């Protein structure tokens, strides 16, 4: 039987994208990260 390739769902459509969890982690990480400046020094702090 003839195959209609154009109607095949593209299963790999999301293959080349990071997971939603990864992006959520990054956004949460960004929100929790604070950089404290003391004189010439910079300290990273993660707020819970």
């Amino acid at each position, binding site marked *: 039987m003839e195959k209609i390739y154009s109607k095949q769902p593209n299963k790999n459509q999301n*293959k*080349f*994208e*990071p*997971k939603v969890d*990864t*992006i959520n*982690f*990054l*956004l949460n*990480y*960004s*929100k929790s*990260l*604070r*950089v404290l400046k003391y004189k010439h020094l*910079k300290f*990273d702090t993660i707020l819970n």
Partner: protein
Amino acid sequence: MKHELITDAKLISNYINGDESALEVLIEKHKQRIYSFIYSKVYDGDVADDIFQDTFIKVIKTLKRGAYNEEGKFLPWVMRIAHNLVIDFFRKNKRMPKFDNTGEFSIFSVLSDSTLNAEKTIIKAQIETDVRRLVDELPDDQREVLLMRIYKDMSFKEISERTGVSINTALGRMRYALINMRKIIEKHNIVLTD
């Protein structure tokens, strides 16, 4: 569509000034290109995810520290970070012990060092010098093509444009350059291997 209208520079500026949503826009805008780039190197979804995450952790830290130098090149900058992390991944992987399920574990798979020791470094330098001398023995037109192709990594199309000859002529000169080098090596019994 709305994301396309805001420049990266503006988004970065907003993010540095405390607008966390700007980061989300930046990630959404570039995630596919960056992730595809990483995936094309590592061919593993989980590893690609890890490297993608590490890449943006570096991006976030740099931006929050105010260490980002805005020159309108956000994406190339992120790509470079990703590229470096991919290299780190392969380097680290090379040093990891590998178990091949044969039941035997060789300590040398852990201790092996891919960097050249002093002797090999000297031999390698000597070989490169010998090869360079051989190249210098070639006729000018052949030497020119060989240097452009091997040392400057130019395509034959670029070589033909640079030298003003056809691609076929450039190919022919390369071929004769290699033949002549082999002839010199055989004639003088030169050994180039270590």
